[in-house]
Each structure stands twice: as structure tokens, then as C-alpha cells.
């Protein structure tokens, strides 16, 4: 049997996604074998720091009875000594039963899968893919509503925000309608817009949150990085007009949910945390059952 890898959400069809999400729900309701991955070892190769994603994978393997190995820090790893990723992967394949990788270069996980003899899971490669994030985003949406034909707003930096790109691609499988709001220069890339519309997805661009708040089911807020703006004045200008507040949400549908891949900076007013619309902490917690389902999928 060919080794299974999880590299990009684009490699999944809708029924494969649904099957994984169903499995995650089963795990979430505590119906799973706690020794499913007993004796299995997961290698966490994080070539750039992402403490939460790494902890979430480590928690997932531990809950299934397996253990994890991780690289101490980027400085300590052999990549800093000039070894190729291909060599690192070939070596680590001998130490572990699966590899989860995060790397600053786009396409690194796909390369890793070519050289690995064990399954590879992509935990983010540069501005590229981060499929476990997309799966947990979809999982969180599905906890509140069926995903079919919903109206989803993506706001913030949609040019460099990879979580927004992968989510948009996955939502095209569910005939969702997309609403976007982003500062000038940080719009969704044209190639992605063309790809989505060719799949029949409707994309509506907006000038303000107020304009769309009454029509949407999901408000997906992404981080805006200050370094993307020419000066801090223009950053603060945009940041304040994009900030999600309880006042803004008063015009929302009752079942609207607010998601954010976290960590947030100024994008969401802390007062929103108390609102029934806020689901971003739930979303982050969902990372564990979703990653457990992913590990079982490739390691069993």
C-alpha cells in the first residue's frame, strides 16, 4: 500500500474531508481507542517556531497512546549546518512512524513526502499550505451549521494569509459563497480568484463589515501584520476599521460565528469573547481531535 501523506487540502475531495471530520467528531465525543497508536512515534520537525501547532500534534499523538520526538530548536537542527531537507527527511524516516513538518519554504512538505518512507503531515510551509488548520476550521463551522451553501466572510490580509486561501479552496467544495474585505494591495491573489470562480464559487467584494454583517453565517478574521503596511499610521487606520466589536455584531444573524486562527492582536475586541458568536477558542481546542483523526488516518 502506498504511504499516505497529508500535504495540501487541495489533495482532498469532499467525501474524504467529510470522512475525516466525522472521525474527529467521534473522537471528540470520547469514542475512540486510547491505544490506537500505542508504540508509534511521531517526529515533529519544526524548522520555524509554532509552539501551539506543535503542542497540538504532540497532545494528539499522546492521547492515542503514541509518543513524539521533536527538534529542540532551529539553531540546533542540522538544517542550520547546511544539510538538505531531503537528507534530514531520509534520516528521520528511520527514527519515526510519521513526520509532521513545518518549514519556512513553500512546497517543503511536498518535497519531504518525496523523500520520506513514512507518512508526512504538513503543519505549514511558508506562505503555502496548512491543511490541519483548514480541517479544524471546517470542523468548527460544522459544529454550528451544515457547511453547504453558507455565506462566509474572509477579512484581513487575504493576500498573504494562507489559512484564508486554503479555507476558501475547501469551501468551494461545499458551494459556499465567499465575501471578502481586505485593504488595498492585500486582496485575494488573482490566480486564486480565477481558480475559485472556475469551480463555480461566487465571490463578493465589500468595502465595510457593516455592509455584509447581516447576510453572512461565518466571519473569518485573519491577522494583519504591521510590516505589510507602508507606515504604522496606515496600519492603525486599517486595523481600527476592521476591528470586530460587540456593536458591529449587533447587526448579525443569530447563528453567525466568528473564527480566527489565533493568536489575535487587535483584530477582535476582547469584549466579543463573551458573545455567543465567538468561537475562536473552541476552534483552537478543536485542533486536537482533528489532528488525532489525521494521525490515525495516516499511521494506522
Amino acid at each position: 500500500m502506498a504511504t499516505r501523506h497529508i500535504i495540501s487540502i487541495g489533495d482532498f475531495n469532499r467525501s474524504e474531508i467529510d470522512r475525516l471530520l466525522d472521525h474527529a467528531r467521534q473522537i471528540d465525543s470520547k469514542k475512540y481507542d486510547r491505544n490506537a497508536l500505542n508504540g508509534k512515534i511521531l517526529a515533529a520537525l519544526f524548522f520555524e517556531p509554532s509552539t501551539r501547532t506543535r503542542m497540538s500534534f504532540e497532545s494528539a499523538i499522546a492521547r492515542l497512546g503514541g509518543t513524539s520526538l521533536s527538534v529542540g530548536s532551529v539553531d540546533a537542527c542540522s538544517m542550520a549546518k547546511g544539510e538538505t531537507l531531503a537528507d534530514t527527511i531520509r534520516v528521520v524516516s528511520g527514527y519515526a512512524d510519521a513526520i509532521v513538518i513545518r518549514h519556512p519554504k513553500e512546497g517543503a512538505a511536498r518535497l519531504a513526502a518525496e523523500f520520506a518512507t513514512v507518512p508526512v503531515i504538513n503543519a505549514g510551509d511558508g506562505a503555502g499550505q496548512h491543511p490541519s488548520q483548514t480541517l479544524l476550521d471546517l470542523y468548527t463551522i460544522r459544529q454550528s451549521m451544515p457547511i453547504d451553501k453558507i455565506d462566509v466572510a474572509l477579512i484581513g490580509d487575504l493576500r498573504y494569509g494562507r489559512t484564508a486561501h486554503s479555507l476558501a479552496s475547501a469551501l468551494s467544495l461545499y458551494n459556499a459563497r465567499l465575501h471578502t474585505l481586505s485593504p488595498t494591495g492585500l486582496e485575494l491573489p488573482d490566480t486564486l480568484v480565477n481558480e475559485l470562480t472556475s469551480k463555480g464559487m461566487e465571490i463578493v467584494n465589500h468595502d465595510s463589515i457593516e455592509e455584509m454583517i447581516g447576510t453572512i453565517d461565518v466571519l473569518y478574521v485573519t491577522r494583519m501584520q504591521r510590516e505589510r503596511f507602508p507606515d504604522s499610521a496606515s496600519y492603525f487606520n486599517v486595523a481600527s476599521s476592521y476591528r470586530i466589536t460587540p456593536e458591529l455584531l449587533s447587526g448579525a444573524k443569530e447563528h453567525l460565528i466568528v473564527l480566527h486562527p489565533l493568536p489575535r492582536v487587535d483584530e477582535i475586541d476582547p469584549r466579543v469573547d463573551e458573545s455567543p458568536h465567538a468561537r475562536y477558542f473552541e476552534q483552537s481546542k478543536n485542533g486536537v481531535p482533528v489532528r488525532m483523526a489525521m494521525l490515525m488516518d495516516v499511521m494506522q
Partner: protein
Amino acid sequence: MTHTGTADENERLLIRRIRNGTVIDHIDGGEALNVVKILGITGTTQEALSIATNVPSRDMGRKDIVKLTNRELSKEEVDRIALISPHATINIIRNFKVCEKKGVEIPNLIQGLVRCPNPGCISNTNEPIQSKFRVLPTGLHCHYCDWVITKDLTSYII
């Protein structure tokens, strides 16, 4: 013999017949140098090479022709030409005779020919891999980072 200046005769005047080798005909006007580039023919190549550009053509208005002596192009080389000139025809010449005539087919995958324009792509590092692009109606898609090349393909040829 009267000179009526037909397209065929102009062509004959421009380039001499070759004994053995490959004639690439019906190249889109102005693309001959890119065809040569795609075939990896450089100043150090041994084969005699002749190029005619903007030759009047009944079907195409104007076309380019490349003649390459003593070299028969492989299927993979030929198909790369389709990326920039899908109407090109390939004539394999042996002892002044056309022994084989074929069109070009756009390949599904091209490896090691084009550099990924994305500076953050893993294929632009010292990893032991060749670049790899899937050829789709929307453009050339990098197998590693999903970057799409939609235009100026020839400027990315390695």
C-alpha cells in the same frame, strides 16, 4: 524558372536543405529563438543550426523555421516546443528525405525546464530535486508551491 516570390520559394532561398537532422516548421512568428532556448542549444553546441524568422506563410501569415543538422529531437524535447508554439511541425530528415513528420503535443508535466518564479519555493534551494510543473489550461502550476506561470514562460527557462 521564374521567381514569383511564393512563400515556399522564399523559404527555400532562406535556408538550404539539410542532409540529416530536424526541421522545425510552422513555429509562431518571432518564437524561433525561444525554441532554440527551450531545446538547450547554446553557443557551444556542435550542430550546425539555421534559423529563419518571419517567413511569409500562407496559413500563418508569418512563421519561423529552425533547422538543426545531425540531431534528431526526442519526443520530450519536441513536446516542450508546444508550450510556446503549439502549431509547430517536426520533420526528421535522413539523407535529404523527410522520414518522419509529426506535430507537437503539449505535455502534462514538465521537469527541470522552467525555474519557479516564487523566491520562497523549495525548488529554488539546494535540494536534490528538479523543478516540476503541471501543465493546465490556467497555466503552468508549480508542483511544489502551486505558483502559476500564466505568461512570459520563456523568461523562466533555466
